[in-house]
């Protein structure tokens, strides 16, 4: 898999005294800073300014580096959409167009598209490689594979300071802490399902415990959107790794069917712990929604009072072949316990 920044840029930022290498410096001049682009002029072929850049629209699909589909341009008082096809070049000074003729429509966001300035810049993102929640202080665009694409997010403090400073600083990228876009998972805001429509491939490399850490860091509202976007089996594994109280909070914000579905997919002893944490009414409702086998198992486990030996037992059956040694049996038991606790 080709990674844009793997090759050229140090991903974790430079240590003190370390210099940017030549290819990195060259690349840095080709990067277009999203924060710097906003407010720059859009000129037609004859160099006449027709408006100013207000936002950048990208297509939100399966590609690792989302392609720019157009710009939102402020012409007079109107916000117009400028399709990418009419753009000749984009650089730090502004945008140049192919022709003098221009067909400007009023901007309206289409399905499958998002605006970088409004929806991504300054919002929370997940750095999958670093397993942490970050915030984009700048976004970098570059022409690559024939199209202008979103290639990286800058999470450095220096980029924030650059944006606070005078306008002429703003365009110059300071790629000190850049994360390759291919290893970033954006996060949904409440009511905006579009941004978590799928989870990025990079996310699947993480272990359930790491994902659980991210969910807890995200807090209830966004954590819930995050869990909702995971596969059922993965989501159940993640819940098993989390604090019982956090799981209770998360599940209480989901539709009951979805929550019951996740509980049914979890290891029975973990599921029982979560049910114990719930209010009586919630627990009864949850049990009612479960498939009959899971309901029977969990009802039996719940009959043991908290603090008794029965309450830490599981109904999972461990299959043992006669020739297995005692050691093998213990190893298998440990493995199972590790998986479920």
């Amino acid at each position, binding site marked *: 898999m080709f990674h844009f920044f793997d090759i050229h840029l140090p991903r974790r930022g430079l240590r003190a005294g370390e210099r940017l290498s030549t290819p990195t410096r060259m690349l840095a001049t080709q990067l277009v800073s999203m924060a710097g682009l906003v407010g720059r002029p859009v000129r037609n072929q004859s160099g006449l300014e027709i408006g100013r850049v207000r936002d950048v629209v990208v297509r939100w699909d399966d590609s690792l580096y989302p392609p720019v589909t157009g710009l939102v341009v402020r012409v007079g008082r109107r916000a117009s959409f400028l399709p990418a096809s009419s753009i000749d070049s984009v650089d730090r000074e502004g945008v140049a167009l192919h022709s003098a003729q221009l067909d400007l429509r009023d901007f309206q966001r289409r399905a499958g598209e998002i605006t970088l300035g409004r929806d991504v810049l*300054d919002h929370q993102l997940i750095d999958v490689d670093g397993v942490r929640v*970050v915030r*984009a202080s700048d976004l970098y665009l570059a022409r690559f594979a024939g199209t202008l694409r979103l290639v990286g997010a800058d999470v450095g403090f220096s980029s924030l300071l650059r944006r*606070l400073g005078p306008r002429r600083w703003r365009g110059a990228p300071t790629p000190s802490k850049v994360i390759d876009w291919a290893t970033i998972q954006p996060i949904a805001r*409440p009511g905006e399902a579009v941004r978590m429509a799928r989870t990025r491939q990079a996310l699947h490399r993480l272990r359930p415990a790491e994902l659980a850490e991210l969910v807890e860091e995200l807090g*209830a*509202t966004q954590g819930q959107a995050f869990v909702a976007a995971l596969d059922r089996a993965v989501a159940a594994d993640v819940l098993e790794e989390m604090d019982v109280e956090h799981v209770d*909070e998360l599940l209480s*914000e989901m539709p009951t069917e979805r929550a019951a579905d996740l509980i049914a997919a979890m290891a029975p002893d973990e599921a029982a712990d979560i049910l114990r944490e719930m209010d009586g009414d919630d627990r009864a409702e949850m049990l009612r929604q479960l498939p009959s086998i899971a309901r029977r198992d969990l009802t039996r486990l719940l009959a043991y009072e908290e*603090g008794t030996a029965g309450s830490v037992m599981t109904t999972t059956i461990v299959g043992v072949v006669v020739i297995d040694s005692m050691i093998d049996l213990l190893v298998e038991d440990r493995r199972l316990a590790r998986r479920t606790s």
Partner: protein
Amino acid sequence: MTPAAPRRSTAKRIAVIVAVMGPGLIAANAGNDAGGIATYASAGSQFAYRMLFVMVLVTIALVVVQEMSARLGVHTGEGLVSLIREQFPLRWGAFATACLVVANLGLVVSEFAGIGAALELLHVSRYLSVPIAAVVLWSLVAFGSYRYVERVFLLLTLPFLAYPIAAVLGHPSWTTVATHTLVPHFIASRAFLVVVVALIGTTITPYMQLYQAAAVADRGTGADDYRSARNDAVVGSIFCNVISMSIIIATAAAIGGSGPLSSTKQAALALRPVAGSAATTLFALGLLGASALAAAVVPLSTAYALAEAVGAERSVSRGFREAPLFLGLFTGQLVVGALIALAPGNLIDLLIDTQVLNGVISPIFLTFILVLANRRSLLGAAANGPRMRVLATACVAVVAVLAVAVVGLTVAGWL
């Protein structure tokens, strides 16, 4: 079974009670810290019962503002500083954040001044107590044992619950209390205006909105539980202002009309009807507990909110290498706060001045909250309706006019 089982369920029951008491109560109670006590006591001693009507207005404004903060926290699941970063242009966000940091730094100064004043009552020089307190608080938080000590501080604040009793036992003139609470009246003097702004600053502190939103968001209350979060915010605000008003009444009954408060010893007199000769010690312990509690929590939550908005690592367990911004901000606030509290001068004046500073900054931060709570693109149907919009705008506007007036008069005084 084991004795562990019932003990755990008791702990759980207490946890439920604390949860019901809720962040609203804790947030509003932050108003009754060192600066709060000094301001309320000073208001009572200087203007006797005349500030009570102002307190009624301040309570209404506090309820409105805390409700908006709770609503933002519940529906977005994010802290206020993060919301401001996402919803406003970066420069506006930076401005709001800078205001918040200055206001909270003022609070930290007042907490250390409170620690110094409390221990001076117990005959310990503040040049000794303040630096030691700063080092001890920093270590407690940095080495993770703060949680356990927090309860001790919390217990120490209990003497302040004696104020309502003191207010009754002090035999205030109840007819005067009633008329001054219900009938609007203002005094056209600079001193009155400054005390009003100090009351606003100590009651509607930016820190409290920050805490309210963050606490609700962290618990993931969810849109369905908004009703209970709202009730909690409203009840908490009202309860705490009843305590504040009882501080004013108790102080007014004891030393009302004797001019501005000049020493903490004088303020402690208000507790005499309850505690007799132990009043000073009781007051000192309460002041110490309230100040120490806030002196750790205020810089901690400021650093947390900022690190969250920047997207930096935020945890006390990470160390300076991994979380330089978070720990740097926390440490910086403690150091600067303690140093300013050591500057020579009257501690009571310092306490009240920091509350005036908060009162001047408060309308700026409130404006940001108001805009966010009005925004339909953020809150959808939970955004402010037309009536709430008018009420909230009126509250913020009045606070802003008073703040501008105080700044104007102060600047005019220099010229």
